[in-house]
């Protein structure tokens, strides 16, 4: 399978999981009054995170825009998810450059994974971009910063859940053994 087809299939699968299953899962960490806000876990930024290393930035931006708009059209939130996803698509390359020891061009034909990045850099990479995505999204969704404590709580709780979900996805759908780092999906 070529990388392009693999990514298109992954895009469809992640999108369907997001809009048909995860959008129905409304979570709340503590249900007591005055406790944590309710939120939906977002898995779809993973599509941007797992694109190959050498994807040009322009293509990343368009992929992010398309991915965000698809989620938007399912959730009636024109532009909000697209805004956040384009943002992480733009900053992805900077974060990768800062975290990887070698130049990005030396990782030709590979995608970001635990195998070629190591556990700690991968988790830092995922959580930084997910927090960025969620911060942008929830700020735009609330459209005010008068309630900043609530906003920060929501960003924190929901990004922690999303990062856990993404790590679970990576553990499930990455081939753990075998010499070549290869992804099933």
């Amino acid at each position: 399978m070529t990388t392009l087809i693999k990514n298109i299939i992954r895009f469809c699968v992640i999108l369907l999981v997001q809009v048909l299953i995860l959008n129905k899962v409304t979570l709340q960490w503590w249900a007591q009054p005055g406790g944590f806000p309710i939120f939906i876990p977002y898995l779809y930024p993973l599509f941007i995170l797992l694109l190959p290393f050498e994807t040009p930035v322009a293509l990343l931006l368009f992929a992010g825009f398309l991915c965000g708009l698809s989620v938007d059209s399912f959730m009636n939130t024109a532009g909000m998810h697209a805004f956040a996803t384009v943002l992480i698509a733009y900053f992805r390359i900077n974060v990768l450059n800062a975290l990887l020891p070698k130049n990005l061009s030396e990782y030709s034909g590979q995608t970001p994974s635990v195998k070629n990045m190591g556990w700690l850099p991968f988790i830092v990479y995922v959580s930084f971009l997910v927090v960025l995505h969620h911060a942008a999204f929830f700020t735009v969704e609330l459209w005010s910063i008068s309630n900043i404590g609530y906003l920060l709580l929501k960003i924190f709780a929901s990004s922690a859940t999303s990062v856990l979900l993404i790590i679970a996805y990576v553990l499930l759908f990455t081939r753990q053994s075998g010499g070549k780092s290869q992804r099933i999906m």
Partner: protein
Amino acid sequence: MRNFILFIRRFFNLILFLLLEVICIVLIARTQTVQGDDIMSSANLLIGNMYKQRNDVAYYFALRRMNDSLLRENIELRKRLTAQAETDVIYDSAATVPVSYTDSGKVVKYADYTYRTARVINNSVGNVNNYITLNRGEKDGVKKDMAVISANGAIGRVVNTSAHFATAISVLSKKQQVSAKLKDGTVGYVSWDGKDPSQLMMRDVPTQIKVRKGDTVFTTEYSFFPANIRIGTVYKTTLIKSKNLQVLYLRPTANFRNLQYVYIVENKMSAERRRLEEAAKKDDDK
């Protein structure tokens, strides 16, 4: 010119990034208003069908709960029916006989409602503005601005329709307020703060109005809803002493988390009424 092209090439990614973000911000800004709901909606054929497929699966697991709620509604309707029969009032609810202007003795109904059932195929409570996708569309006569209610209470307003699907913005939305009244007729607005789906608020109620816990708040005839549909029951009140006002916290009577069947209410007089109100507004502006 050459320098300009070089500049574009050098900052191409940044320019593209800013361009896409500006497109997103324009989209967001336009949907922040109540009027901007038709820019992007899940009422289109592809997404509607996908939601319908998903709901067909989930439908079977909700059958038992649905049966219970239908039974309860039947009991409620039977109660009202017997109440009507005992008081023995001859009351023509479907008065569609044209009334001539000489006929001033007859009472003309202010509104004439048609109810359509619809199934909720997608629903959310976790966002700041929550939308409901319904499996009825223009082909079934659903139009924009019709009210959506359930057996338990007010649900929302239709904002977008396609041939077979419609989306409604729910009462749990920051950008819309619902005209509401208390038992004694005090009128106000019910709004949602975007946080807890089991809490609505009615602000700016004067303190001299005594409100007790458990009082019900109803819809008024000023809004797109038919009058006297339950919205919520009061569970907490707070005083704002400086303004001499109180805030009522309501528990919504409808359970937004497990909506299955709703009614779309068409007000047959609404077009006429809106025309009249808009004409009055225009006169005001002059």
